[in-house]
């Protein structure tokens, strides 16, 4: 074979291949295949208004206001009077050059934002003069307006769409806004609507010569739909006030529907901070990773705390269902529970009933650790192998939505942790028993839950065995939602009859038990206090922080209207902070006012600040403390 054939072959092959490709591009596809990116077609956008957001009673939470951006398309900028333009825009020359270079770096042939959110007076003046400066023009934009300073964590905020999305999604152009957090992000498609597009032919002088293809491809804008939230904004604001000076989260749910009445994280921020010219400055402060208050961190959804004593109800329910105990079963308490041979293997108990039989009702009312340790031991020792029993226990617990993301319609969340047999098998190499994991009996140890999970758990008890997935949107465009995820009830694995004694006991808590100082006249509250130990690890030292104050409750006892979970970080006993906050919220929601006799409780809670404690335990001080040890 002659060796020159190889190159001849390559030449003809590539030649034919390339001409084939040209045929495909130029003859088969032709000019019309993509007007969006065709430079000879100009597109004008018609932006619809973003949907409004209301609370469950129709109070307006989020509206719109206009804002004006100066845009620039660098390749259309011809010789201009820079100094005059600088004066008009009220910026200096260096700033001008910097901004212009930034726009050029992005792309010379695409428009980009030159100056954001002009003041209204500047706009009127500028609009008259701007035609002199080719390449510069004003883009009207709709930004958000918040009439109330509330529920920033629920509403979220909108911000400029990121570059990745601009590149990959043709619905978004550079400089447009999209929902970044909360409801704004979750319901972006519904709130945003769809912008209208008008296609025009343009000639090489960038003049419009008529509509493209007689307007066949033009679309009308589709306006964004309004949302009605399940939030009761009065309750939300009241809860935010109660949490002043404290860190933590409150979630209130309507048990009969799963609607979230209030979702509070503290500290939070004013949603108006993320609107307008100071936005970037404020967002730096809010999102600063070093800020220990983490105001954008939604504790109600994200913070996984040990649930503490409220988890005892879970163990009571599992015990009843698995026949480990019945309502008459009694255990004796000797100031604590001994789970091992060593002197330190002793869990103390504060129920105050020494050496006399305690049954379920008293055990919950007085929060007896020994009773639930015995119960837990019985549950775990039911089967011959501990991991099998724990898997059954885990199945019951997770049927309440604990240990999972729950599936609510907000974009952030945390699954918490509910351990199963495999978890301890790998951790303790198969050598573990009920005693090893005895902390689970009282909601300590490995178990972690978020406030919304615990509120949902309480709602399931209030409903005697079922719950609706919590959700935040009640109506879309004034029509009730029909997403089956939120309208079909989820059944737990515990039989209805076993809830009765537990609810009775929870009622007892507020009558005679740990919550008795927080009663409200005329309202039958059922609840459970909690005090959860928490630790932090610094330089390898495990250090204990003041306990979290926790309370779960629902009311009234018959036909419950509200179920809630309150977490106050490092607040001490559940009965001292979380309980009064809970009772105030219940009274506010059910009666719409706070009665005279409870005014003192209200002002105490409004004025209580835990800031001293938080300041003492700031990272810097903690390091000092651990070194001293």
């Amino acid at each position, binding site marked *: 074979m002659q*060796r*020159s054939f*190889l*190159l*001849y072959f*390559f*030449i*003809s092959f*590539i*030649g034919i*291949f*390339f*001409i084939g*490709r*040209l*045929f495909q*591009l*130029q*003859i088969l*596809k*032709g*000019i019309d*295949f*993509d007007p969006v*990116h*065709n*430079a*000879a077609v100009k597109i004008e956008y018609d932006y619809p208004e973003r949907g409004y957001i209301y609370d469950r009673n129709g109070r307006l939470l989020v509206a719109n206001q206009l804002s004006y951006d100066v845009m620039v398309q660098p*390749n259309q900028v011809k010789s201009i009077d820079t100094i005059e333009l600088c004066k008009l825009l009220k910026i200096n020359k260096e700033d001008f050059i910097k901004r212009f270079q930034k726009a050029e770096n992005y*792309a*010379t*042939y*695409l428009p980009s934002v030159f100056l954001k959110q002009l003041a209204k007076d500047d706009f009127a003046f500028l609009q008259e003069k701007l035609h002199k400066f080719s390449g510069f023009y004003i883009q009207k934009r709709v930004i958000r307006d918040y009439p109330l300073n509330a529920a920033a964590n629920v509403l979220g905020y909108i911000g400029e769409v990121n*570059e990745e999305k*601009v*590149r*990959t999604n*043709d619905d978004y152009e550079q400089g447009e806004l999209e929902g970044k957090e909360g409801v704004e992000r979750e319901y972006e498609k519904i709130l945003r609507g769809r912008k209208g597009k008008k296609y025009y032919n343009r*000639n*090489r*002088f*960038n003049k419009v010569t008529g509509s493209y293809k007689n307007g066949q491809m033009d679309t009308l804008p589709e306006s964004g739909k309004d949302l009605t939230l399940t939030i009761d904004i009065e309750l939300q604001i009241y809860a935010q006030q109660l949490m002043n000076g404290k860190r933590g989260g409150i979630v209130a749910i309507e048990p009969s529907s799963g609607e979230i009445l209030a979702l509070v994280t503290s500290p939070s921020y004013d949603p108006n901070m993320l609107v307008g010219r100071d936005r970037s400055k404020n967002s730096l402060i809010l999102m600063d990773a070093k800020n220990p208050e983490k105001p954008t961190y939604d504790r109600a959804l994200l913070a996984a705390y040990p649930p503490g004593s409220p988890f005892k109800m879970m163990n009571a329910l599992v015990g009843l269902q698995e026949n480990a105990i019945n309502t008459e079963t009694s255990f004796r308490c000797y100031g604590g529970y001994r789970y091992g041979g060593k002197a330190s293997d002793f869990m103390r108990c504060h129920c105050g009933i020494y050496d006399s039989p305690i049954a379920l009702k008293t055990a919950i009312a007085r929060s007896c650790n020994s009773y639930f340790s015995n119960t837990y031991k019985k549950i775990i020792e039911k089967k011959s192998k501990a991991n099998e029993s724990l898997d059954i226990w885990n199945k019951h617990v997770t049927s309440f939505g604990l240990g999972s993301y729950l599936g609510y319609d907000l974009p952030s969340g945390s699954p918490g942790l509910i351990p199963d047999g495999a978890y301890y098998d790998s951790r303790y190499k198969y050598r573990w028993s009920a005693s090893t994991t005895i902390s689970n009996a009282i909601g300590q140890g490995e178990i972690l839950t978020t406030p919304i999970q615990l509120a949902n758990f309480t709602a399931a008890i209030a409903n005697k065995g079922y719950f609706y997935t919590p959700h935040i949107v009640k109506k879309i465009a004034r029509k009730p939602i029909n997403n089956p995820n939120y309208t079909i009830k989820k059944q737990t694995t515990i039989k209805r009859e076993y809830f009765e004694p537990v609810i009775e006991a929870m009622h007892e808590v507020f009558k005679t038990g740990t919550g008795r100082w927080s009663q409200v006249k005329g309202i039958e509250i059922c609840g459970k206090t909690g005090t959860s130990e928490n630790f932090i690890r610094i330089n390898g030292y495990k250090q204990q922080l003041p306990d979290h104050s926790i309370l779960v409750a629902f009311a009234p006892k018959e036909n419950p209207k509200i179920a809630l979970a309150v977490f106050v970080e490092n607040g001490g006993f559940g009965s001292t902070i979380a309980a009064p906050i809970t009772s105030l919220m219940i009274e506010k929601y059910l009666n719409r006012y706070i009665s005279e006799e409870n005014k003192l409780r209200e002002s105490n809670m409004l004025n209580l600040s835990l800031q001293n404690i938080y300041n003492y335990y700031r990272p810097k001080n903690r390091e000092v403390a651990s070194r001293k040890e």
Partner: protein
Amino acid sequence: MRQEKNNIFAGIDWILVFFYLILVGFGWLNILAASQNDEYIDIFDFNTKYGKQLLWILLCYPIMIFVLFFNSKFYERFASIFYLIAIFSLVLIFPLGKEINGAKAWFSFGSMSLQPAEFVKAFTALAIAKLVSDRQYNLSLIKNQIKAFTVIFLPAILIVLQPDPGSALIYLAFFLVLNREGLTLNYIIFGAASITLFISTIFWGTHTIFICLFSLITVIVLYLIYKGGKRLLRFSWHKILISYFGIGMFIYGTGFVYENVFKQHHRDRFEVLLGLKVDTKDIGYNSYQSELTISSGGLTGKGFLNGDITKGNFVPEQHTDYIFSTVGEEWGFLGSSLVIILFMLMIARIIYLSETHTNKFGRIYGYGVASILFFHVTVNIGMVIGLLPTVGIPLPFFSYGGSSLWGFTILLFIFIRLDAHKKYDW
């Protein structure tokens, strides 16, 4: 030996010169279209791109005369010297060069810059011709192969270091030359197979390819064993195991190199080209706009100076690397096909002429010229029509830029000189 005539134009292949003039002229018209602004056109305004390019083109004539002036023996005799000077110029870049667009590839003389890499190609071709044309030289010996590879890869490596990997890629063209002179085809087959495997690995994912390929090979091996037994295959177990192992290493190595050695912008280019990532605004913008510009030309094009996408400056670098998109828009399918045909005919003509050389030196050099042009045209047009990833190399004779135009002119006219002389080479 007959005496060479004094007339330097005697024996010149005018067909090749004709191709050259047509391509340069048509190229300039397209540069004019791509770089003009709307107000007026003054072709002697040397501040404009097209004015400058016209100057470079006019300066080509003295260069041609100069190249043709020397006796063809001169090029053969001094090939090594030229090569050393070329290498030296590439080394000098590092202390003295000027950085443009992130690559230190230019010598700057006042307002003018020169890119030595564009000239080194011609001198490397001379050096290869000189080396391989030696009577003692036998390409089937590994030792000699290594010598040839050194001559090829020394400039290529220096260019990669600038860094301008696109221009360095062109040196692979010399494998076609070596193949013509007796280098086994295995290198090219191996290279092509590796590239295919590399791309399919990226496209379908490491594990899929691994499993598919292994099952395919296993089936083939089992079939061969079943059909012919050991004798037909003449295989040994360790060979099979080594090839299994080698392919496995290659596939997983590809994944590793792709994720860890390649930069994000390289990965993006691959992924956009393979359609794994939709991107019409940023990295994909160039190719997307150039495809769109070409498509808008239709069958006959919009006519000279009437391409509105070209005028709107929507395709970046349109007068240099993306000049072919102007041809596509203004001259349509007919015009752009004609350009491809012209290039291919020109290259075929060079090969044809080379084969008539009785002197080995001239033939090898001719092959070098043909291969370099072929690589350039394929990679550049392939990129512009969206078949190959973005590699910034010019289209010969077309693209704006003095260095590249002069480099290709010298490359071609040395061949024309050698070719004119072949009748006397008895």
